[in-house]
């Protein structure tokens, strides 16, 4: 049997530790998706980034401690079309050689409803940084959590598609960013 003070110390230790760790999450890579939906000749296609690093600290009860920092490896884009994926890395598009990474860093977290939130931050693609807001749904279970979000953006805001592509709608201007992350607690 533990003595009362020792048990109390142990309990406090567990609680403090849990509070600190509770809001840090690890992305379960093989289930999660981070990508976008764009249009080609008026027909939608979905692309996913196979490689990205997401630092996610989030606790619905302590929004002020939350922080998202996501770095995406541009070369890992996959839209189930070898030719299109290759094309997207070209200088007119993502210009992967010069700008291999895209990054999102949060600045503010807000609750928007029951289980729904919005994270505002700075999105940098091709070295162009813009304010960006991702509304998302958050669902938590004992073992993990899921974060699902969608946000509209325009490819031209980040100079994706230069030259004739800049004004030609054959590759649609509107792009929807899709985030579906399965998370487990960091220990």
């Amino acid at each position, binding site marked *: 049997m533990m003595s009362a003070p020792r048990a109390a110390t142990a309990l406090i230790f567990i609680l403090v530790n849990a509070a600190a760790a509770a809001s840090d999450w690890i992305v379960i890579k093989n289930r999660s998706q981070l990508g976008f939906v764009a249009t080609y*000749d008026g*027909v939608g*296609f979905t692309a996913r980034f196979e490689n990205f690093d997401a630092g996610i600290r989030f606790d619905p009860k302590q929004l002020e401690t939350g922080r998202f920092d996501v770095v995406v490896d541009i070369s890992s884009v996959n839209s*189930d*079309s070898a*030719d*299109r994926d290759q094309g997207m890395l070209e200088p007119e598009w993502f210009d992967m050689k010069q700008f291999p990474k895209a990054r999102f860093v949060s600045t503010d977290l807000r609750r928007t409803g029951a289980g729904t939130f919005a994270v505002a931050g700075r999105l940098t693609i091709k070295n162009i940084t813009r304010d960006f807001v991702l509304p998302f749904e958050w669902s938590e279970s004992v073992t993990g959590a899921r974060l699902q979000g969608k946000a509209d953006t325009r490819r031209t805001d980040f100079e994706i598609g230069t030259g*004739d*592509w800049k004004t030609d709608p*054959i590759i649609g201007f509107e792009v929807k960013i899709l985030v579906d992350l399965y998370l487990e607690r960091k220990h």
Partner: protein
Amino acid sequence: MTLRNSDHSWGGIAKVLHWLIAAMILGMFVLGWIAVNYPMSPTKIKLFTWHKSFGITILMLALLRMAWRFLDPPPASSAHAPVWERQLARTSHALLYLAMIAMPVSGWIINSAANFPLKLFGLIRLPDIVPADKTLQTQAEFVHLSLFWILVALLILHVGAALWHHIVRRDDILTRMLPGTTRGAKEPVE
């Protein structure tokens, strides 16, 4: 001009289909090469959209034409022609029909395997006929290009034969396919 074939001449429907498809195929040779060699740009994508749309149209016209040929028996082959000549004509015509189908189908396979959308004249969305697959795409590209050269060879033979009939043989084989003529000009009177 009657719509149906007669004993010794092609009817209006067969003629229209023959010449429409012939013109479109020759146009597609040019369009295909321009599209392939055009630098990557919105215009290149549009050239391909036209190429694919006309290609699928050719496929539908070719199927229609084959169905019609089945329903409407062709005119008799030249009575004096030796067996080898008739065989060659029959075989080359069968190969031309095959190419009219295989050419657009292989194109459709390239497009599906590359996972690019197919929208007929920007209006009708057509399904993919194979799943996305880079290896299959490369193979289908090889087939599409090979079929092009095979078709070129067949057409040299085909047009050469038509001209040979007209100029050397001086029979009615060419004229009975030309618009306007219902009766073979040099058909022996029975």
